[in-house]
Structures are given as structure tokens and as C-alpha cells.
């Protein structure tokens, strides 16, 4: 398998999020946007929220995986469509940094069979989901308990900075 094929496999994947975060995600993605007469800051595209949640989860070092019990998890946009590319690649880089923790070394991949590569890709995405959903869980908690913080235009920066300090 060549690089391009691996790239494609990953790019086609649509990471999932847990249904219970849907309303919060909608709220902080576009709907509540101040420019549309809402009361708080927002991200714009949903996948940005996802990327943001991923970073939170990653900084927390926590993962919240989608399991069989999670009914109707919701799909995000395919990874290949995420923008900006650089940040998307950065996220991939972060997962690859920890690939050995979920059972794959890079050199292993060099020798892996197609089946194994597919497993790797599935797990790759699973890892993304894990961090992202952990991040969403964190955001949901903040949304429920400290809603007022979302009126600060710097709320998303504040959250990241708080995590940097802990």
C-alpha cells in the first residue's frame, strides 16, 4: 500500500460523536452566534467544534470512546474535508505520536497487511473520537454549569489556556 491509499482511507472516515452533545454542539457551532443575534461566541463549521473538542480531550489526556451502548452516534464531516489542512494534519500527527499506545508502531505499518492497515485506520479514527468525545464531555459540563462563560468572546481561548495551566 502506498501513502496515497493510506491517506485516502483516513480521509474518508467520518468520526462520530455522542448524541447527547448534539444540542450543545449546535449551539456553539453556529446557531447561537452573536453575529446572528445570539448571545455567545461560536465556531462556525461543526467540524471545527470537533477539532476543538479533540484538542481539549488531548490536553486533558482523556478519552471517551463510542461504545455499543451509545445509541445513534452522529457523524461529522469526513476528515479529508476538515480545514485548515495544517491543523487536520497536526491532529493526525498527534494520534500518530501515540500509535504505539493503541498497538501500532510506524515500522509495523510498513510491513502490515491491508487488513491490518484497515484495523489501524479504524483504531486511528477511534482514537480521534475518544479524545473528541472527552473534549465534548468537558465542554458539555462547562455549558451546563458555567454557561455565562460562553458570553465571553475569548471563551474558547480561555478553556485552552486553563488546560495549559493544569
Amino acid at each position, binding site marked *: 500500500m502506498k501513502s496515497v491509499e493510506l491517506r485516502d482511507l483516513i480521509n474518508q472516515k467520518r468520526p462520530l460523536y455522542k448524541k447527547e452533545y448534539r444540542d450543545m454542539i449546535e449551539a456553539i457551532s453556529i446557531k447561537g452566534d452573536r453575529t446572528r443575534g445570539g448571545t455567545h461566541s461560536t465556531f462556525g463549521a461543526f467540524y*471545527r467544534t470537533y477539532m*476543538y473538542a479533540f484538542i481539549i480531550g488531548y490536553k486533558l489526556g482523556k478519552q471517551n470512546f463510542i461504545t455499543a451502548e451509545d445509541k445513534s452516534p452522529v457523524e461529522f464531516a469526513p476528515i479529508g474535508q476538515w480545514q*485548515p489542512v*495544517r491543523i487536520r494534519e497536526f491532529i493526525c500527527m498527534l494520534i500518530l505520536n501515540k500509535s504505539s499506545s493503541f498497538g501500532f508502531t*510506524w515500522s509495523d505499518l510498513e510491513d502490515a497487511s491491508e487488513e491490518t492497515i484497515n484495523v489501524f485506520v479504524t483504531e486511528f479514527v477511534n482514537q480521534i473520537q475518544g479524545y473528541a468525545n472527552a473534549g465534548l464531555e468537558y465542554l458539555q459540563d462547562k455549558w451546563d454549569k458555567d454557561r455565562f462563560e460562553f458570553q465571553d468572546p475569548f471563551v474558547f481561548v480561555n478553556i485552552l489556556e486553563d488546560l495549559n495551566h493544569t
Partner: protein
Amino acid sequence: MGAIIESISFKNFYNYYGNYKNNIYRFKRGINIINADNNMGKSKFYNGVLWIVQDQVYDADLKRLRSVDESYILMASGKAKNEEHKFTMGVKIVFYEQEIKYTVLKEVKFQKDNNTWNLLPSFNLLQTEDNKDISILDIKEKEKIVDKLIPEELKRYALLQGESLEELVDLSSKSGLASTIETLVGINTLINAYETSSNFVKRSSKDLADAEKAANAENQKVLELLQKKEGLEKRIENAQDCLEKYQHELEEAENTKQTLEAHLMNAKKREQYKSVMDKLEYQINEKKKKKDNLEKSITTEMFSDDYPWLLTGMGEYILDYSSSRIELVKQTVKRDWISEAIMLPKGSPDSQSLREMLEEGYCRVCGRSAKRDSEAWLHIKKVLERPTSKEENPRKNDFSDFFSNIQIETSPFVQNLEKVGEIIKNYRQDILDLDMQIKILEEEKEGAELEFINAGGINNKDDSSDSKTISDFTYAGRTIDQKTEDINKVKENISLWEREIKSIENKLTDKHSDENVNKHRHVNSMMKQLELLFKNTKERIFNEIIAALEKNANEKYKELTYGNLTSGGKLEFKKQTDGTVLVSIRDVNNNKITGLGTGFQRMKQLSIVMAIISSKIGNKQFDFPFISDAPFSEFGNNFINNFFIVAPKVFTQSIILIKELYDPRTENFLNNLGDQILEKMKKGDIPGTFYVNVIKEKADTANLVTDNKCYKL
């Protein structure tokens, strides 16, 4: 001697429900106070007097007087209208004049027919002299008698409705001035004499001209001179008409200017502050827009291509990746190299030979030294240790590009992410700075708004009214200049023509000494002297009156404003070129004071009224009842107190309708000031009577019934 009101009573008139004996107020000389809260009958009482005296009532909604014909239904008691099908509404005033008692009764009979009221007004007047009652039947006679109560020319001073105070005293128009002076001195006789003498001048001039023509019928030169003289006289007459017109226009412009002057100071200030406010508003909006844009761009910055705030503090992960990748490359290269090394060319040394080469430290293949751990020696070692089986090193996949692309893509972040922290910090600071700037500007704007409001800004939010005031004022100023110039020109011309006439007359005198002509000339000369004497006397008296008025008004003003914390300045009466008078308020440095509160403005008006009344030559006391409804709104306690001290010196009898002494919470419905004044009355320090109106039946405003309590008779 003037009139004194003995009593005023009402029957089913507005709040005054019931018979006259239930709604009677008995009065004396001095100050008669009727203290009542809003809607308790003050203005209704006043309207009763207006009905008797001038068949009008004051409509508070329209803020003007209305004929009673249009108002009978409104005037009738709501309770009477609701409860009765037939009743009489009326007002009765009993007054004395020259020891004769007059009972004036104006009534309207109401009768309900289906749902409409039929009205039958009546006017009865009874004269009682030496205990004999005489019914006055002639309507003109009745009106004449009512006029004795308050003469027509004094009504504007005797009947004072608080809100109309400003319109009352008008010295700045000829008619207002004439009316005032006439009121003061009855100068009509003098004016009449002057006008007659002016008329005589014209007549004698004509007679002289006719005599001269007759005497010189044969003399062409003389006739020409006479014609020329006639022509000049005609020109002077026309010029004088012109002069009058210009003077009137000048007077109007002066009036406008004076009226606007007070507004103007404030209008200019308002314009100035409005301009400042607009400018600040613009600046604030710009800053807010800028801040808004910055805030909106935060999420964009979070996902920036070059300095994404999202990845703040995560630069180290790139280094980790880089290390891992280097490791991978090393491994890959190693494997690649080894997989390529398996295939050695023919004739290459075998393993044993390679071992010997290592021991010897010498390469037999290229014949060079290969000392231990040197590059050559390590190479030989690698060859010796190479995998011997190709199958041990399979590489199914080639993901080098995959990994390297990620590195390439993220490599700029290595340096950039270090700077993100600082970028965020500066961005926050920029927004804080904008907040501070906005705050400062808003405080400035608030300050300007306050000044705007202090200059009357609340009621003048309309841009155009201030601009119009300024432009009207400017136009009035230009008109004044223009008309003054025109007047001067006309006067110059008149002067020139008069000199020419004089010269002609001298020539004519020289020309002949016809006795008849001389006589007429002498008569003409005397008439002119007479005219001049009356004119100068009129001027002199006018000036004396104005000076006395100014002195008197200032005395009253001082007395009325005594004890006030703010100095109200003093009144200045300035004679204008057209003979009218402008009254302004000056401070101690003789600077004009404008913008004084309504209280002071009303005090100024009241002082002038009192001065006019007490300036009446030969009669220091106002001999007619002074009746005033609510003159004290905008006055403080100090003013009110002072008024009760000053008023008895000016008015033989006054009836004052006032709410400022009222307190519904006390037993006697009087506040402290009311108690003080009542006390003074009881002691005899203030002569008069004291009534308080109370609401007999609490009801909606249409059915209010007022009763009165007499505290001092």
C-alpha cells in the same frame, strides 16, 4: 375708590355642587387665600370670576380662554348632571364700589330632554343703595357695572392665570407699552393734545401755503418756491409714513431678537453640545465596530493557517513526531540498505575473509587501511553482519510520503506556535484598550449630554428647532441693522428737506412782507412750538414712568426674591430707538443673565405687574381686586413667603388660589408654610381670609364635589 369683593359663591358649578350658601367664600381687604390641591376647584373658582367679568372660562387643555357659550355643559357640576334632570348652574359675586353694593348673578338653567340638555342662560344684577334694592335691567348698564368690578383696561393685570404670566407684561411692543403707560397715568389726554397739535401744524402749514399762494398769485418765482415747498412737505409726509413702517419692522425684529436671545444662548450651547455628542457617538461606534470585528475574528484566529490559537502550547508534539520520524527513517534506511546488501557482486570476500580483514584492520578489496572503528572498518563489519536472507526484511508498504507530508505540513508550527501565546496576549490587550477608549469616550459623551440637557436639551432634541432659532436670530439681527440704516437714511432725508423748506421760507419772508402771510406764518410757527412742547412732555413723562417703573419693579423684585440662595440679578429697563422698552435681568456686573429658571422669570413678570399697579400716579394702591390662579408654580417657599409680605402693600384686595400650602396628610391640610401664614393672619400680621378646599365626596374627576373650610375670616 375701587371695588372690594364681599363674597363669591357657586351653584352646581364644576366641583361646587349644591346651592350658593353651601359654596360661599367671604372675603375682606388684604390677602384672601384659597388653598387647594390639584383638581380641588382652584381653576374652577377662577373660571367663575372670568365668567362674571368677561363671559369666558380658561380651558386648561387648550390653554386658552373660551367663550362660556361653548362651555356651559363642561362648567356644570358632574354630580348634578348625573343625578338631576333639572338644575341651575350659576356664579354670584357681591361687591362694593363707592359704598354701593352690587350683586351680580350669572346662571344657566339646565333641563334634560331625552338625552340632551336644554340651556337657558340669564344675567341678573341687583344694586343696593341705602338699603334699597334696584334691579338693573338694561344690558349695557349691567356691563358698565360689571366693569366697575375690574375695568377693561386693568383686566390683564387684575386677573392672573399662572401660565399666562409671561404674556401679561409686554413692554417691547408699542401697543403693549402704550397700554401699560395708559394704565399707569391715563396719558390719553396728553396724547390727544399732542395729536391735535400735530393736526394743527398741518392745517396751519396749509393755510400758510394758501396765503402765500394768494399773495403771490402774480409772482411766478414765489409760486415756484411755494410749489417746491409743497413738494418737499409732501415728500416729508411720505417719508414719515415710511419711517413709521421701518420703525415697526425694526420693533418686530427687536422683539424677535429679544425673545430668541434667551433661547439662543441655550440653542447655541445645545448645537455645540449636540455636535460634540455626534462626534463622540461616531468615534464610539467606530471603536465598537473595531472591537466587534476583533471579537468575531477570534474563532478565525483559532484556526489560522499560520498561528492557530487552537494549538497554543503544543509545539513540542511536533518535535516528538519529528524524532519518531527520524527513527522511522533510520529503520527504513537500515532495512533498505540491508536488503540491497544481500546481493554482493561475484568475487566478493566471504565471511571468513571479512573477519580476518577486521582483525587485520586492512581491506583486501581496495588495499587500504581499515583501522578499528574507522569508517572502512565499520563498513566491513556491516557487510559481515548483513542478513543473509531476503525474506527476513520484507517491506509491504511505503508510507514514507504519508509521514513526511504530515511533517512538512506541520513544520511551520515549530516556530509559529511559540509565538501564539504572545499573539493572544496582545490581541486581548488590543480589545481591553478599545474597551478603555470606548469607556472614556462614553464618559465624555455623557458629560456633553448633561450639558445638552442643562441647556434645555430634553425638550429640544429636534435639530431643526435649534438651527431655526439660530438662523431666525441671525436674520433678526440683520433686519435690525438694515432697518436702522434705512431709518437713519430717511431721517437724514427728512432733515435735509426740512432745511430746504426753512431756506425757502426764509426766502419767502425776505421776498415780501404781506401782513396776512406773516400772520399765518406766525400761527404756523406757534403750532409747531405747541406740537414740540407736547411731544417733549410726552417723552419726559414716558421716561419718568419707565424710570419709576424700573425703580419700583426692582424694589418689588428684590422683595420677592429676598432670601433666595441664587441671586436673581436686577431688572433693567432699556428704552429702544423706536420708543419701546426692553426688560432684561442683569447681574451685579451688569451682564445680562439668561437661562434663569422659570421661577425667576415669573418673578420678573410679577415684579413688573406689581410695579405697574403700584406706580399708578396719584394712587399708590391698586383699587381693584387682584385675582390670581396658581401664580406660584415654579416658586419656592421663599418666593411665596415674600409674596405674602409684598402683596398687601400693592393690592387693596387680592384673592390667591394656591396649592403650595397644601398637605393632604395633615389634619388641617396645611404644610408648614401654610401653618406659618395662617398664624400670621390670625395675629393680624397679614390681613385677609384663609380658606382650604377639601374634596367632599371621593369620586372620579367627573363627579368631584368640593367643600371649603374657613380658617380665618
